[in-house]
């Protein structure tokens, strides 16, 4: 009996197929990306000039909070899970994920988590307004009553991430084709394997944090309330014990994508494969022992502050190794600049700039000036947007022909890249200036000396926002009306098992395991 997708809505609701679930993850995360982007547009529109024009400060805080939460938990993380779903079985020569039903569950609880979260916008008291880092006691004693919806939303999203990660670990460790040893796996698989372990380790910590909040708010405990013997700073320690690995959870799969794209368009194997694996592991390890560098102003003892400063500086070493390896891969290659390559190169440049500012703020005595200003906002958008989102976009352009069997329009792709790249830099580079000049982050309104660069930043943000609609158009027009992609060698320099399959690939990727030499 021929095997294929079910007909109708059942194909999606009851799917256990890695590609269908991957597709749903990708579309869901793109929808969240647009929603979070809309919030960002509200923020930038309000900050276009001094004074309150469009929203009030109360709603502004809801916007910054929801923007952060939706982008981190709704857009970036699920998009990489979607990519993992599509690619990992194809890259390791497996028919599907190891735990297909768990896969279905981990996706389908996500929309419920975000419905819980987003529904607070329409409730009395409004959406969460305490920042995506939700520091207590602003998020406990002083929170709007809707905070309980936020807490349960986070629980559900966390459960989804943990299940997704367990599935990825099980798949990578059990379903590799004969001959594919761990050190022969594509780097994207490696980075996701490490990411999955990070997720399994820290998501329960986040769940614990919000559970303690729940207890403080509803059941009279005082984990984070000094009046009852607790400690508001404890909140920050547990939050950042989750939060710092979290940022590597976001960026490591992006490293994996770039490590696939750069060699392809350089027509040269990745330089220093094994050192890439070791560097990724080193970054993952370090991510657990540096959390309090987010807290240099809370009044830690000197010894603690020194330790967290030194440990944080160390991260520059493995991160540098990765950048050097990518550049050496390009060196003496035979380079072409298709859209995925443009995005990957932009990733390296902009992520490195974000890395530089990261190194600067690792230094405690000067971070005291940077802390909680627009310098920080600029830094993390360079690594989150120009890092994770650019890598994701690169990956979509790169694998879309494989997934759909259709080729995107190269000129449109390049045009979309340039609008995106220029818009991004106009939006976020001036924020370095704003931060250094003294503008704190999460400000609904600001003094007049910040007016000029804020206006520039807003213009860039609108441009970058428009580029994402352009991207949506490119993807949809490819799926509907793209020219057929070449069956042999979509990309001249591409290596790996996924390129041995047809375009689009069969419903169950590898029904007989390929032999890897």
């Amino acid at each position: 009996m021929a095997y294929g997708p079910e007909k109708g809505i059942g194909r999606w609701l009851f799917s256990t197929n890695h590609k269908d679930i991957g597709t749903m993850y990708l579309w869901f995360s793109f929808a969240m990306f647009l929603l979070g982007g809309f919030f960002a547009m509200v923020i930038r529109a309000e900050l276009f000039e001094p004074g309150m024009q469009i929203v009030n400060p109360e709603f502004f805080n809801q916007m910054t909070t929801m923007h952060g939460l939706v982008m981190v938990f709704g857009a970036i993380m699920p998009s990489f899970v979607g990519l993992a779903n599509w690619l990992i079985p194809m890259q390791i020569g497996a028919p599907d994920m190891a735990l297909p039903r768990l896969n279905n569950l981990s996706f389908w609880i996500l929309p419920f988590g975000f419905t819980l979260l987003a529904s607070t916008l329409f409730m009395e008291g409004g959406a969460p307004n305490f920042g995506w880092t939700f520091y207590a006691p602003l998020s406990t004693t002083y929170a709007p009553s809707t905070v309980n919806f936020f807490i349960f939303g986070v629980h559900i999203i966390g459960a989804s991430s943990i299940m997704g990660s367990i599935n990825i670990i099980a798949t990578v460790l059990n379903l590799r084709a004969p001959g594919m040893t761990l050190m022969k796996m594509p780097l994207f698989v490696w980075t996701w394997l490490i990411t999955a372990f990070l997720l399994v380790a820290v998501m329960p910590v986040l769940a614990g944090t919000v559970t303690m909040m729940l207890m403080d708010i509803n059941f009279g405990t005082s984990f984070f309330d000094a009046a009852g013997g607790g400690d508001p700073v404890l909140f920050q320690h547990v939050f950042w014990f989750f939060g710092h690995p979290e940022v590597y959870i976001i960026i490591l799969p992006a490293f994996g994508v770039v490590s696939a794209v750069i060699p392809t368009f350089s027509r040269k194997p990745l330089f220093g494969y094994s050192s890439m694996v070791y560097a990724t592991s080193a970054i993952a390890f370090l991510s657990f022992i540096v959390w309090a560098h987010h807290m240099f102003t809370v009044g830690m003892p000197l010894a603690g502050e020194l330790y967290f400063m030194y440990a944080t500086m160390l991260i520059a070493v493995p991160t540098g190794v990765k950048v050097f390896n990518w550049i050496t891969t390009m060196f003496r290659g035979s380079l072409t600049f298709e859209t995925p390559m443009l995005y990957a190169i932009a990733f390296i440049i902009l992520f490195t700039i974000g890395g530089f500012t990261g190194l600067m703020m690792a230094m405690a005595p000067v971070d005291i000036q940077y802390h909680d200003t627009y310098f920080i906002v600029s830094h993390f958008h360079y690594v989150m947007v120009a890092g994770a989102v650019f890598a994701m976009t690169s990956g979509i352009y790169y694998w879309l022909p494989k997934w759909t069997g259709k080729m995107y329009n190269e000129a449109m792709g390049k045009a979309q890249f340039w609008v995106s790249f220029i818009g991004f830099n106009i939006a976020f580079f001036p924020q370095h200036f704003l931060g250094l000049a003294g503008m704190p982050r999460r400000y609904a309104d600001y003094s007049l000396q910040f007016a000029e660069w804020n206006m520039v930043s807003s213009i860039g943000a609108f441009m970058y926002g428009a580029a994402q609609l352009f991207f949506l158009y490119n993807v949809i027009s490819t799926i509907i009306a793209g020219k057929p992609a070449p069956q042999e060698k979509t990309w001249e320099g591409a290596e790996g098992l996924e390129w041995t399959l047809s375009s689009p690939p069969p419903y169950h990727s590898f029904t007989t395991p390929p032999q890897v030499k």
Partner: protein
Amino acid sequence: MLSRLNRLVAYALTPLFLLFFAGLSYAKEPTGSRPEGWNLLNLPVGVSSLSRNSYELHMILMWVCVAIGVVVFGIMFYSMIAHRKSLGREPATFHESTKVEMLWTIIPVLILVALAWPATTYLVERYDTDEADMDIKITGYQWKWQYEYLGEDVQFMSELSTPESAIYGDSPKSEFYLSEVSEPLVLPVGKKIRFLVTAKDVIHSWWVIDLGVKKDAIPGFVNETWVRIDEPGVYRGFCTELCGKGHAFMPIVVNAVPEDEYNGWLADKKVAVAAERELAKKTFTLDELMTKGEEAYNRSCAACHMGNGEGITGAFPALKGSAVALGAVETHMDVVINGVAGTGMQAFGGQLSEVDLAAIITYERNAWGNDMKDIVQPVDVLKFKQGQ
């Protein structure tokens, strides 16, 4: 067409990057007056050893990053220009070198060790709060600061003085829009001043960039930091920890003056405090209290309960027609003076004078259609406080 454009942009990128960082290095002179926004590109040098050290380290780090960036991006752009397929380049096949990997692990480690040296020195200096000449206790409230000159019996609240109409565009914005306060913190230059920083409700953070001081104000804990200001001047700062809807509206203004001027100010301040205490014994008429009350209410209460007394549904209760405002005077005084535990309602007993407290309570009982017709005198407030 597009490929030519790409090449153009690729060539243009390197100098652009350099230009950006050159722009970053453009330092501004520290002054009290407001410079043009376009020129504000870098950290100010500031007026204390702490801010100067931060600035110095910042510049070292920036030049180190620029140098690394020039080398790394230089090699990258060289490859992008010279090793193109369109030039007929055949790819090399090398893909490993332990020697090179060792090299670019060890060199960054050495650079980091070199950077750690000044960073450690500066951090140690920052933590030395011993042997201060004077102590100032800073308390963060939603959304204002309280300054207490320890041992001098002087304390006051410092709130935003920009009118709401300027924020919502109904009146022009002044030069120091959102950077001006009802009463600045006055400090002497040349003295080592220790700050004891805490908060009463949520976490705030006290930051004045020109002083190089930023410390979180955490409810239930007292943080220590210090500064020695070198030059007289007016230095402006902000709250830097998200603390609710008024986060952007609780600026800091420090007026640093020579020591004798400071002593004169302190003496005047003490006289004013004594006069304020004397005033509390006076008996006021309803009209006097209503006028005073409206003014004090708008300053201290309207941020949450709103100017029209209707509050914000779901967040802050209305006072218009509320059970407290229309109930027993004692309960009303208790709520205002002692706050309500576990909610955003602060204890205003320690923040406001008896006159203001009496005026606010009287106003709340007789404004917006509330019609209790009773008068709370400052003496009543005093008695209530003493009776506790």
